[in-house]
């Protein structure tokens, strides 16, 4: 699982039936401090997160498994909202 920040919402009227009832959010992967890391992606939101919130998401088959019906094509899913995260530098 990795940290991300919700950038916004993606709306698709036409979509696969297994995505019905789920929100799609644009997520920017970040490090612990919130600095951007890599390309933004679209993830299924499973925790009612809001734009600007710091979240964590899972990629791959496990994202699809996170939905109530695992028979869906999701490859990223937001599975938690970060309250606090601390990272101590290595070697300290």
């Amino acid at each position, binding site marked *: 699982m*990795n940290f991300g920040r919700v950038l916004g919402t993606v709306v698709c009227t036409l979509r696969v039936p297994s995505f019905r009832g789920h929100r799609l959010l644009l997520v920017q992967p970040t490090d612990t401090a919130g600095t951007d890391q890599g390309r933004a992606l679209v993830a299924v939101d499973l925790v009612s997160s809001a734009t600007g919130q710091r979240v964590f998401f899972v990629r*791959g*088959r496990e*994202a699809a*498994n996170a939905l109530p019906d695992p028979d869906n094509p999701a490859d990223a899913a937001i*599975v*938690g909202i*970060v309250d606090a*995260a601390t*990272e101590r530098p290595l070697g300290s």
Partner: protein
Amino acid sequence: MFLARVVGEVVATIKHRELAAQKLLLVRGVQPDGTPSGRLAIALDSVSAGTSDLVLVVDEGNAAAQVLRRGRGAVRTVIVGVVDEVSTS
């Protein structure tokens, strides 16, 4: 699997039900000599690891499911061992 150093923890009140009551630790991948490799991940802890421990981490769903003794689900990153020693010849 990869070698990593536990560098912190993550607190999340709102999270997927499969993550409920599980300790979430922040792990930073390291090279065999201990230098950081840059890979940062949030992992479930199955071995009561602590901060600054050198650990073994799996990032694959089947492995995670087996360790957690449950069916395939939403979890793929799990700490599966605390490393005592790494030796390279």
